[in-house]
């Protein structure tokens, strides 16, 4: 595939995403002309681009859709439920078509044909619908298409020589409009002594409200074009003259000045337009989100370049750390200041560079809007999806890792959480269910909350199921929290009937695992009949972690600080004599792993060693190391291909003195060693 095609795919993906957004907004406001125009424009771009870069299927497919939306735009077709659902299916289908061989797939090909048929059916329906639609639209159309035009007409003095009467032209002009204001300009009329009655000294300025296009207006002056100064300008997309304020102001201006200043007119129109807007602002809020996106000036950068930038910045951070170390050790006064400056700039540079790789959560919200829309139609449930904090930014890799688990959670909410309308009414709830999505920063974390006001989780049922599945003993006494945590245990799924949506053999355990993978945590709260809240906590970035720097032998290691619980010093004898690798810490039995042996590191152990307690699932496990150096902000680097199957080390980081510390994946270490034992 050549690079142009790749570019097109990138662009088309964006276009399709925008299309989905526009169609979602259109569904809320089916008469919104701007949204319809936007849908049309995207279809048009897809068609054009597809044809140009050899995506004939896309081009062909969008052609008919474009025709439909052209008709819709012209008011010949209404936006119907049917049309929207075809458009939504088309959005999905278009995504498939970006793969050029897609039509070789039987399933996709079938879908392609079905959709084409449906599109054609809508186009055919158009003729029968047109009459009805026309009547409905007449009033709206005439209103919405009105525009205000400013015409300046200054004939030459000699215009009347060939028999033209400028007043007739003005009359003809005014007959084109529904409403007009004519202002003659008489300032060029000379003193009576020099006045020649066969000459025309007057110019005219006309404000006219009309639905004809500018060319037709220009045509009025077609025979005098060469002998006069003519200016035809659209000043507004609506009827300005309907506004009395404007007329009054214009008349004032006319009396004061001889010529209308275009800038003044413009600002007047703008004021009126703003008044108008504030009235319809509520309706258009969705649209605003949409246009906001287009205004933000941004450039497209390949993620490779960003990765490279991040690497360089990390390198700089490391180099700067060694400079600071050198200055500290050698006490060079002149260098001290310099090093501090560099440290300062490096920190700012690092923060900026990291912020570049962050993208707003908004980018995945469209998908959820869509999901909820589709699911609520399918299950016949009435659900409102409210989002807050869509501008919260996350590392792009985190967003990629989050989408699937979040989809799953939302599916669960729609499928099991929110009750059908009649059930809700019986319970005295609002008929419309609600799913509330909120994202916000909290310290060095991003928190995502998904809340529904559905039936909540039946604790008894969960417990009974755990007993049936022999996950817990039948007489186990569990706290509410512990019962809810059962849901995250592999092989647990509460759905009574396996539905297409949630029960796909993956349950909340997969959600938890996926979120663990991106070093996040997940928590669940639920009140029966009030609803369920799932809280996900994530680190801001994947490339830097807060770690605990420890030493074993002559190698340094980093453990993720958020997993470290406590550190104790013990004599080597304690570990050597420990029975079954268990030590008693604060009256608690703690299993431990002696890392020097587990890692097969040669050399003699120290007399006093450190026991680091780390969290593992809901247990505490000890890891024995030689020494603890302290906290360390580690820039994570991959170990490279040679070690790609090496699970217990999740990466490496370069220390201030240029040496390498290995980052331990404590969960995997414990998994591996406990499995082995």
């Amino acid at each position, binding site marked *: 595939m050549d690079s142009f095609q790749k570019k097109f795919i990138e662009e088309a993906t964006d276009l399709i995403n925008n299309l989905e957004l526009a169609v979602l907004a259109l569904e809320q406001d089916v008469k919104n002309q701007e949204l319809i125009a936007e849908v049309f424009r995207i279809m048009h771009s897809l068609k054009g681009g597809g044809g140009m870069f050899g995506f004939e299927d896309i081009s062909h497919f969008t052609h008919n859709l474009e025709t439909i939306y052209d008709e819709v735009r012209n008011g010949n077709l209404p936006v119907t439920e049917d049309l929207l659902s075809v458009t939504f299916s088309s959005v999905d289908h278009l995504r498939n078509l970006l793969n050029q061989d897609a039509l070789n797939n039987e399933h996709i090909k079938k879908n392609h044909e079905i959709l084409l048929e449906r599109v054609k059916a809508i186009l055919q329906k158009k003729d029968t619908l047109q009459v009805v639609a026309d009547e409905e639209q007449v009033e709206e159309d005439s209103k919405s298409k009105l525009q205000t035009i400013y015409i300046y007409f200054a004939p030459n003095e000699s215009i009347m020589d060939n028999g033209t009467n400028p007043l007739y032209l003005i009359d003809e002009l005014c007959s084109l409009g529904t409403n007009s204001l004519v202002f003659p300009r008489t300032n060029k009329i000379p003193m009576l002594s020099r006045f020649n009655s066969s000459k025309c000294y007057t110019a005219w300025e006309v404000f006219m409200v009309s639905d004809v296009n500018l060319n037709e207006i220009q045509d009025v002056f077609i025979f005098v074009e060469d002998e006069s100064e003519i200016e035809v300008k659209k000043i507004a997309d609506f009827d300005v003259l309907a506004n009395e304020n404007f007329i009054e102001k214009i008349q004032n201006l006319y009396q004061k000045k001889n010529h209308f200043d275009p800038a003044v007119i413009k600002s007047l129109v703008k004021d009126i337009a703003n008044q108008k807007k504030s009235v319809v602002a509520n309706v258009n809020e969705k649209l605003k989100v949409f246009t906001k996106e287009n205004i933000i000036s941004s450039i497209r950068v390949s993620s490779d370049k960003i990765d490279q930038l991040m690497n360089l910045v990390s*390198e700089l951070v*490391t180099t700067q750390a060694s400079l600071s170390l050198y200055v500290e050790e050698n006490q060079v006064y002149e260098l001290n200041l310099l090093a501090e400056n560099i440290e300062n700039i490096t920190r700012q540079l690092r923060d900026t560079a990291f912020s570049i790789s962050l993208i707003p959560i908004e980018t995945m919200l469209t998908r959820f809007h869509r999901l909820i829309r589709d699911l609520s139609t399918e299950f016949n449930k009435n659900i409102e999806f409210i989002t807050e904090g869509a501008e919260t930014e996350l590392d792009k890799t985190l967003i990629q890792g989050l989408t699937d688990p979040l989809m799953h959670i939302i599916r669960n909410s729609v499928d099991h959480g929110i009750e059908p309308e009649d059930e809700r009414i019986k319970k005295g709830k609002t008929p419309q269910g609600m799913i509330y999505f909120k994202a916000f920063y909290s310290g060095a974390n991003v928190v995502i909350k998904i809340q529904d006001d559905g039936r909540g989780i039946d604790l008894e049922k969960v417990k009974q199921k755990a007993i049936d599945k022999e996950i817990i003993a039948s007489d186990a006494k569990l706290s509410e929290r512990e019962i809810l945590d059962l849901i995250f245990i592999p092989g647990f799924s509460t759905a009574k009937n396996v539905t297409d949506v949630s029960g796909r053999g993956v349950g909340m355990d997969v959600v938890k695992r996926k979120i663990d993978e991106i070093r996040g945590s997940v928590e669940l709260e639920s009140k029966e009949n009030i609803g369920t809240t799932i809280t996900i906590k994530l680190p801001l970035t994947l490339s830097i972690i807060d770690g605990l720097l420890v030493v074993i032998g002559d190698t340094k290691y980093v453990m993720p600080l958020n997993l470290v619980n406590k550190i104790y010093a013990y004599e080597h004898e304690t570990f050597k004599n420990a029975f079954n690798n268990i030590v008693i810490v604060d009256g608690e039995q703690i299993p431990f792993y002696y890392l020097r042996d587990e890692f097969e590191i040669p050399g003699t152990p120290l007399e006093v060693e450190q026991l680091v307690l780390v969290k593992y699932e809901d247990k505490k496990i000890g890891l024995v190391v030689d020494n603890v150096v302290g906290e360390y902000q580690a820039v994570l680097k991959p170990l490279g*291909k*040679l*070690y790609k199957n090496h699970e217990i080390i999740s990466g490496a980081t370069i220390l201030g003195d240029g040496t390498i*510390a290995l980052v331990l994946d404590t969960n995997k270490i414990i998994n591996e060693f406990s499995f082995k034992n």
Partner: protein
Amino acid sequence: MANEEIQITNSYLTFQLHNERFAVHVSKVLNILELVPITKVPKSPEYLKGVINLRGSVLGVMDIKMKFDFPIIDYTKETSILVLQVVIDDDITDVGAIVDSVHDVIEVDEKQILPPLSVGIKFKSDFVTGIIKHNKQFIMVLDMDKLFNTEIKAAIEELA
């Protein structure tokens, strides 16, 4: 220009492993480093010596001598690390290879490279793609892609 390019594509870096000479095409070699301290990665096979800091990125280092059953001797000040660009699992990646010493770069006409013998040589010919006769000495051209890939497969087997 054209001449230069042709020359470049026919250059080979030669190096020593035990008492044999080997060569690798210069397009594969990014850098030659003197031996630096290597951070050993626990629970990894013997010939994966560990990782080093190569200007801010982490580079895995392998002792390729171990692949050829050469006697293991202590590292000397001649010992070097070749930073090579190899293809592992269809991805281009940088790796380090420890060699006993690095010699010179030689220009070789393609015609001078003989196919490897399938019998009668003492080394596993899987990794040897050709033999150069240079100043009455035989130099074996190594296929580093293959060497590192096979190395990794062997590593997986040992870990399992």
